[in-house]
């Protein structure tokens, strides 16, 4: 599996994190690091673009929920965009589609802030 690369893009008050590869126990710390940096800068409107995310392990998904909770406490939100059908079905099975907002593409997600 390809280790996950993360590209960041700023659109006004929103930060888009584009994930490319697989998020597992080895690569998740990178995303965690990116999240923590945003938090330190008081940036709490975040979109995760998952169009090139091949795989996500369950611990990483759990951490996303935890992170969403933190940014919501600060008045922000974490939204997911462009999930592949496979990852969408996992998110749905876990019931996480009821906790996180999911959009077909990053642009639409950004516009919902």
């Amino acid at each position, binding site marked *: 599996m390809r280790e996950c690369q993360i590209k960041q893009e700023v659109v006004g008050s929103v930060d888009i994190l584009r994930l490319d590869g697989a998020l597992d126990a*080895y690569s998740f710390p990178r995303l965690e690091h990116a999240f923590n940096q945003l938090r330190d800068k008081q940036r709490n409107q975040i979109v995760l673009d998952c169009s090139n995310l091949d795989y996500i392990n369950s611990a990483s998904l*759990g951490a996303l929920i935890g992170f969403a909770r933190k940014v919501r406490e600060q008045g922000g939100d974490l939204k997911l965009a462009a999930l592949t059908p496979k990852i969408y079905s996992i998110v749905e099975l876990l*019931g996480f589609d*009821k906790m996180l907002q999911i959009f077909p593409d990053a642009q639409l997600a950004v516009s919902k802030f």
Partner: protein
Amino acid sequence: MNPDAGGISNSLIFISALTNFLLAIGGAYMYFRWQKQRKTCEQLLQEKEVIFGFVHDVGEVFAEAEHIEPDLLLKRVLFYALRTTRAASGVIYLVDDRGDTLTARAISGVFPPLVVDANSGLDVAVSKSKHIENLVRTRIIHKGESLIGTVADLGTPVLVPDAECDPRVPRHEAEFLRIRSLVLVPMRFHQQVTGVLAVVNRVDGKFFAETDMSLLQALADQASAAVYYAGLRDSLDEKKRIDHDLSLARQIQYSLLPRELPKIEGIELAAFNQPAKEIGGDYYDVIPLDDKHIGIAIADVSGKSIGGAMLMSICRSVLRAKAPGILSPAELLRSMNHALAGDISEDMFITMLYMVFNLETRQLVVARAGHEKPLVVRADRSTEIIESSGTALGLLMDQDMFDSIIGEAEIHLKPGDLVVGFTDGITEAMNADKEEWGMDAFIDSCSLAVSEGSNSLINKIRQRIQRFVGDHPQYDDMTLLALYVTK
């Protein structure tokens, strides 16, 4: 768990607890089983307290094992070794990195040198115990040299009850260095000798006996893994450390799965669990609830490494404490969520399928906390997926949402029908071409094998997956649990 150590004695379980939590888990497992056999309503409440207490204790042991320095750990092992055998002094030698020499890493009491070199200064500095300790610490021993080196070389323990008559034991002039009785045991991990633990002279003046040797060996066996992992933290980089944490977590996970499933008139239960390199932490359990209901759980615990394994142990304790009082699966999952959410780290959660089967009416009630939906295969080979709504357990964010979303499904089973719960590792088993085995192949396999019952069905699915994946490494655990109605 070391099978040799399991039944030796309760006191040994106590002694090893600090150095190896696996033994603690094993002991608690036996304790819970014993408790279960004499259960009344009041005892149930007590049991609940004991379980929560245990979870807390295990947590503390874990927290400590993760951070303790190797040298401190060795000192503790030695402390318990001396207490167990009532020895006056002891030493732990560890095999050096190159593998052909040993160095003393922990010493307790005045340990008389087992190798005597010319000009060692023993004769002139007899009263200086510090000098003796320094001598033992600095004298590197080659494999095969002296009793220490021999035990390291052969990997077998040595008991010398009457050491003064044994030519292998050096004779020191000074009274306080006299060696009357001696036991040496190898420390072994992954089929390799990692060190030698030796104790000298019982404080009551008696000779060491066979029981001292076997107790010491059991202690060394339990301690070896902990010492090994403690040493790793010092020397390995992050990636390797993650790998080893995963392997430690694996051992804990394995110790939490049922050794065997209960035999119950009218049904046949079977399960299969295969761990993968990166863990998802699969767990399953079957819990007799009363004389006509059984609870069947299958869960996937998320969370990294040791944290995940700990969460599994908590999940198991909470499930086992709560299940006997609650016959509604949705109610049980709500109650578990209330117990778990807030107490567990926020990146962790558990998906769980919980089913309660009524042995008299053959009614099966199912609830699902974000877990894969179970499959029913009827005797005529038709299949249906049991649908019910629910989100994963343990997430702090949405307790009320959890309570309102979780639902139940109820189905009636007839003789010849089979229900199978599974984790995503089954349907997502991957071959070298990165293809997944898939839900369709899974349903097809279940349908074909239904008439042969649970055990045979599970074996067939296992073989099919094996053929499909070949030797491609798997990233997630695989777990299957089947209930077959025989009459």
